[in-house]
C-alpha cells in the first residue's frame, strides 16, 4: 500500500492531477477546532517544517534560515478533499533521545499526542543525518510520510535522491518537494490522505541491527510489553527507552498511561475508511 499512491476514486485521472489536488486544499489558518485527523510535522532543525506548515495552513509562522527557530509547537488547520486536518508544527530536533525541552515537546507529542499521520520533513541534501531522526520516528509510529524537502538545493548541489528506493527501504510514502516554491505539496497532501485513511500502517522499517549487547534484554522486555498491551504500536521503542532509563516513559508506564496509548483514533479512522470504500463501490 505504500508505493504508487492509488486513489480508488471514480475520476482517477482527475484525482492524481496536481491542479485538481491543489484546488482541493483549503487553508483554514487557526480554525482547526473541528478536525478529522491530526497531522504532526517533525524533522531536523532547518529543513523547512515551518515553510511546509505555512504553505498548508496559510498561516505565517516566522521562518528563518537557522536551526532552532521553532521551540514551541504551533497548530493550524487545512481541509483537503472535504476532510479537516489539524497540523501541528513541532520543534526541529536531531533526535528524540535527549532531554532538552524542545526534544521533549516533539517526542511527547509523537508518543502521547498520537497524531494520525506524522510527516517527517527531511533535508534532501543531508539525507544520512536526517535519516537518524526518521528512523527514530518510524520506531514510534509507522503512520508516517517522509517529505524530502529542499530538492531544488539537492539538484543544485548535484545530489540525486532515489525516492522510490527510499520508500521501499523505509516502508512509508516518500514525497520529494521544494516547499519554498510550493513544489511537491499536492503530492504531499495525497500521501497524507492516503496514510490517514489506511487502517493499518504497512511494513515499516524497524531497526534491523539490534545491538548485540541489548538484544536479549530488549526481546524479553518487548515481549512482556506486547503481552500486557496488545494494541501498543511501538512496544519495542518503549522497551528501548525503558532500558535507556527514560524517566518520562517509565513514569507513563507506571501510571498506566500506556494503556491509553492504544490507538485512540483508530475507531474514527476505520469509520472513515469504510466510508471511502463504500463511496468507491
Amino acid at each position, binding site marked *: 500500500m505504500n508505493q504508487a499512491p492509488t486513489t480508488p476514486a471514480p475520476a482517477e485521472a482527475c484525482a492524481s492531477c496536481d491542479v485538481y489536488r491543489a484546488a482541493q486544499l483549503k487553508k483554514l489558518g487557526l480554525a482547526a477546532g473541528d478536525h478529522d485527523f491530526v497531522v504532526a510535522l517533525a524533522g531536523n532543525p532547518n529543513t523547512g517544517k515551518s515553510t511546509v506548515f505555512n504553505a498548508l495552513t496559510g498561516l*505565517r509562522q*516566522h*521562518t*528563518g*534560515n*537557522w*536551526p*532552532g527557530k521553532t521551540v*514551541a509547537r504551533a497548530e493550524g488547520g487545512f481541509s483537503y478533499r472535504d476532510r479537516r486536518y489539524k497540523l501541528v508544527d513541532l*520543534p526541529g530536533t536531531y*533526535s528524540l*533521545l*535527549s532531554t*532538552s*525541552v*524542545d*526534544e521533549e*515537546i516533539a517526542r511527547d507529542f509523537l508518543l502521547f499526542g498520537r497524531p494520525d499521520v506524522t510527516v517527517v520533513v527531511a533535508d534532501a*541534501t543531508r*539525507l*544520512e*543525518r536526517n*535519516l*537518524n531522526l526518521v*528512523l527514530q520516528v518510524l520506531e514510534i509510529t509507522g503512520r508516517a510520510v517522509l517529505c524530502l524537502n529542499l530538492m531544488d538545493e539537492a539538484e*543544485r*548541489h*548535484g*545530489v*540525486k*535522491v*532515489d525516492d522510490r*528506493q*527510499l520508500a521501499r*527501504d523505509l516502508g512509508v510514502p516518500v514525497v520529494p518537494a521544494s516547499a519554498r516554491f510550493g513544489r511537491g505539496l499536492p503530492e504531499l497532501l495525497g500521501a497524507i490522505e492516503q496514510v490517514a485513511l489506511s487502517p493499518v500502517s504497512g511494513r515499516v522499517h524497524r*531497526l*534491523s*541491527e*539490534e*545491538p548485540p*549487547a*541489548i538484544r536479549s*534484554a530488549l526481546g524479553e*522486555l518487548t515481549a*512482556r*510489553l506486547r503481552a500486557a*498491551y496488545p494494541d501498543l504500536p511501538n512496544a519495542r521503542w518503549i522497551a*528501548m527507552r*525503558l*532500558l*535507556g532509563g527514560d524517566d518520562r516513559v*517509565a513514569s507513563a*508506564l*507506571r501510571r*498506566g498511561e*500506556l*494503556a*491509553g496509548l492504544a490507538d485512540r483514533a483508530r*475507531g474514527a479512522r*476505520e469509520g472513515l475508511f469504510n466510508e471511502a470504500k463504500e463511496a468507491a463501490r
Partner: protein
Amino acid sequence: MSTPPEVGAADVSAGAGEEIFQLSRRLRGGIEGDVHEHLVEALYADAGRIASRAVSRPGRERRATFDATLDRIVTSRVWGFPVMLGLFALIFWLTISGANVPSALLADLLVGQGYPWLRDLAVAAGLPAWLRGLTIDGMYLATAWVVSVMLPPMAIFFPLFTLLEDFGYLPRVAFNLDRLFQRAGAHGRQAMSTMMGFGCNAAGVVATRIIDSPRERLIAILTNNFALCNGRWPTQILVATIFIGGLVPAHFAGLVSAAAVTGVAMLGVGFTFATAWLLSRTILKGQVSTFSLELPPYRPPRFWRTLYTSLIDRTLFVLWRAVVFALPSGALIWLSANVEVGGRSLAEHAITGLDPLGLALGLNGVILLAYVIAIPANEIIIPTVLMLTVLSAKMTGVGGEAGVIFELDSPEEIKRVLTAGGWTVLTGVNLMLFSLLHNPCSTTIYTIYKETRSARWAALATLLPLFIGFAVTALVGFLWRALA
C-alpha cells in the same frame, strides 16, 4: 465502531506497568556498556546503509565552492568578528540615517498637526478639561510619540535583519561566538537565544529551550537581558543621535551615532560573557556540554516575501505592543502630572525623591521615574522622559499645560528640551548604558518565571542587571566628573 477502553482497564495495566518497569530495571542492570550508545550506533548504521542506497552524486558539487569560500571568510578567526561588526554597524547606520526623515514627517503629522486639531475638536465638542487632558494630552500624545519614534527605525531595521537571517548568516554568528561562550562556561547554543534576544528578550528566553543542560539554560536565561531588544533600539538611536552625534561635524554624525549604538550592543554581548563566566563559577557551577552546530547552506532570501512578513510579523507586532502599553501609560503620566498633593503634583514628588539617587548615578530623577512607569514596555521610555522633563522643568513655550508635550519633531528640538531639563552628555551616555543594563520588561520577567517555574530565578534575573546598571552608571558618573 470505536472501542473505548473498558472501565477498570487502567487499574489492571497500572499493575502490569509497575511489574514491567521492575523487569526493565533488572534487565538494565545486566547490560554491558551504555544502552544509549548501543542504540545510537545501530541507528547510524541503518541510516548510513539506507542513505547509501538512495543517494548518488552524479554531478559536481558546484555551490560547495561558493559556500565554502564565504564560510572561510565569515567564520575565520581573523575576519569573522570584523565582518560581523561591520555588518551590524551597516544595518544600524542604514536604520539611523534612513529613519530621521520619516520620523520627523510622522512627528509633524501626528504631533504637530494632529494634536492641535484633536485638541480644537475636543474644545469644540465641549469635553471637560480633565477628560480632554487624560485622553488627548495624555493617551494620544504618548501614542503618537511612540509611533513616530518607533515605526521608521523598525520598518528599516527588521527587514534588513530578516534578510540576513533568511540568507543564513545567523548560524555563522553563533559559530563565531561559540568559542567565547564555551570559555565563559556557557552553552554554544546560547548564541542563538542571544540573537533572538536582539529582537525580543521574552522570545530569547523561550528560545533557550534548545539548550538541554538545565545549568547552561539558566545561564542563558539570566543573561538574555544583555541582548539589546528592539524596544530599546529607539532609545539608543535617538540618544546617540542627539548627544553622541552632536559632538562631531554633521556629516559624520550618522556614522558616529551608528558606531555608538553598535558599541552599546557589543558591550551587552560583553556583559553576557562576563556574567555567564561569573555565574558558571559561583552559583551555577558545572561542565560545559558539547553540541553540534549545523551551518545551513546560504539561501538567496525571497526578498518581497521577507519584506512583507517582517513588516507584518515583527514591525507591526512590536508597534502594536508599544501602542497598547503607551495608551494607559500616557494616561498615567498625565494623571501623575495633574493630581496634586500638598501643592505639587505626584510626578514632581516622585522626581524630587528620585533625583538624589539619579544624579549620583549620572542620570536624574526623571529617567528613574520613567523606568518605573515603563516597566511594561521599554518602548515608551523616550516619550515618558520627555513628558516628565517638560513637566518638572516647568517649561513654558514647549508645553502649554502641565504634562503636555508639543511640537518636538526634530532631534534638535528634543535636545533643546532635554538640555533645559539639565541634561549633559554624561546623562545621555549613562541613559544609553542604563537602557542596556536594567531590569527586563514585565513580559520578559513573567516569561522567565514561566520557563524556570521559580520566583527566585525570576527575581535574580530582574535584580542582577539592575544592580549591574547602578554600578556601571555610578562608576561612569564618578570617572566622568573626576576627569572633567
